[in-house]
């Protein structure tokens, strides 16, 4: 989307406003970017802080030791592993369920479409506190113990609509005749989907899955209602902060940050190549 619109607008608009206002806005935009990135820079820097004990508050000198001792806080490691595996399972689940809904919404007109859209819109925009609270009420009513799998269920619930919306917008741009041509040439429904439709919608599925993964690994509010005694990375940070956060938290945050950027850039490159 951004690539095509960027091309459209490369012709510079004529009669620009005065140079000084442009410069002012340019500086302003960078000020906003710096403000947004300031806490990230602090997080990364203090992962290299040579602190003596657990308190990581003042700069004590540069060290790599926290990278070497990344897994030396056992329950923090468990929390990180929980976060990663929950995010993986939730991404797979919401990618499959969301893609199917996206296909249906993009390709067919059917009774109940409006209701489905409304429910999805509500699931995207309802306040997290309310969604977490209602899901907890539900589990309490059914007498289901909260833990790892209730977190997975919740994460699939709130991320599948994002995948569906992403896939739907891609399906809408496809020519249905291509799929029909595959069927005319003797492909069955599944074969046509696997060899024709799926490759065409794959960038959207991938983008939606990345979004689902990001939503899941970062979620705090809904998870906090439905976690029982299971800890995820954000929940561990929340519980530990009264005693001060150990530098390993900064290191893990930094690694997630770098991995996230690599994934996003990789996805953008793939999307551009497929165009």
């Amino acid at each position, binding site marked *: 989307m951004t690539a095509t619109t*960027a091309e459209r607008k490369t012709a510079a608009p004529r009669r620009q406003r005065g140079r000084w206002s442009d410069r002012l806005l*340019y500086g302003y935009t960078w000020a906003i970017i710096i403000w947004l990135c300031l806490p990230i820079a602090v997080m990364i820097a203090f992962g290299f802080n040579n602190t003596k004990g657990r308190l990581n508050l003042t700069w004590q000198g540069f060290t790599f030791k926290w990278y070497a001792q990344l897994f030396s806080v056992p329950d923090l490691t468990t929390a990180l592993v929980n976060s990663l595996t929950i995010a993986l399972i939730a991404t797979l689940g919401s990618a499959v369920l969301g893609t199917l*809904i996206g296909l249906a919404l993009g390709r067919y007109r059917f009774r109940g479409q409006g209701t489905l859209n409304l429910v999805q819109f509500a699931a995207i925009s309802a306040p*997290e506190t309310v969604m977490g609270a209602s899901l907890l009420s539900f589990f309490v009513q059914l007498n289901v113990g909260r833990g790892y799998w209730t977190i997975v269920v919740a994460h699939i*619930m709130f991320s599948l609509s994002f995948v569906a919306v992403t896939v739907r917008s891609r399906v809408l741009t496809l020519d249905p005749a291509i799929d029909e041509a595959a069927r005319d040439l003797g492909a069955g429904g599944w074969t046509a989907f696997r060899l024709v439709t799926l490759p065409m919608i794959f960038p959207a599925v991938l983008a939606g899955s990345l979004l689902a993964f990001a939503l899941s690994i970062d979620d705090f509010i809904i998870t906090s*209602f439905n976690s029982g005694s299971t800890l995820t990375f954000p929940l561990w940070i929340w519980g530990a902060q009264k005693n001060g956060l150990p530098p390993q938290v900064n290191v893990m945050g930094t690694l997630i940050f770098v991995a996230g950027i690599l994934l996003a850039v990789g996805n953008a490159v793939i999307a551009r190549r497929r165009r």
Partner: protein
Amino acid sequence: MRRRLAPYALILPGGLWLAIFFVVPMVVMLSFSLMQGDVVNGFRLTWHWQNYSEGLSTYDDQLIRSLIYGVLATAACIVLAYPAAYWIAFRGGARKTTYLFLILLPFFVSFVLRTFSWKFLLADDGIILSPLKDIGLLPQDFHVIATGFAVVAGLTYNYLPFMVLPIYVALERVDPKMIEAAQDLYASPTQAFVRVVFPLSLPGVFAGVLMTFVPVSADYVNSTVLGGTNNTMIGNIIQNLYLVNTDYPQAAALSFTLMAILLLGIFLYAKALGTEDVLEVATR
């Protein structure tokens, strides 16, 4: 026949998931909000509407504070986001995508971690305030943490990208020829902006408000981390009643009150702005 059933087969698993884990829980919560009882003896549905009236009268402070913080942070997001979105859309040139990516960078760091990072940065003897105190620019007892300002600032920080993005998308769709046409008709740059560009960007502002106001008003992370004990929001109360007090009926009633107020606010806002279809903007 098969083709007619095909969409239903496709939406069945995901639709069921949403029905069971999103719609049904809302109904369960609604019934909880009319119950009486406690965890030990169980809860019974007695149509106890007092849960709502008692919730409103006990926690009116937090409810009103949440809405005020929500309005303030959303307004701050619009004011801060608009010029940046404008510059990127009209003057970003070939690097537009890069600038947008930089705006989105915070999303690659855990929301909770970013908020704690601000607590660390703004601490009374932290790396921002203590040098200013040392050179005498600020009084020694000056503090930011545990004030309403810190909460609103934290909320604004955390939700700013959600405002930049939709405003950018709307501005990006404005055809430069429209601005040229306005200028050919002797509009000054200011007039061209006020009469042409700004009205065309309003759907983006609307989408941005939708994406920030609701989560901001219901947030409790920022108020807990940055607000201390005197600036609690309704989210704090709901979370506490659920997880600490296990007063589910009261908590459920407050959740519904909050959601009703937010929905009402959005629809009034949609009417005031004249946006035809709230859904249309939001699901795009």
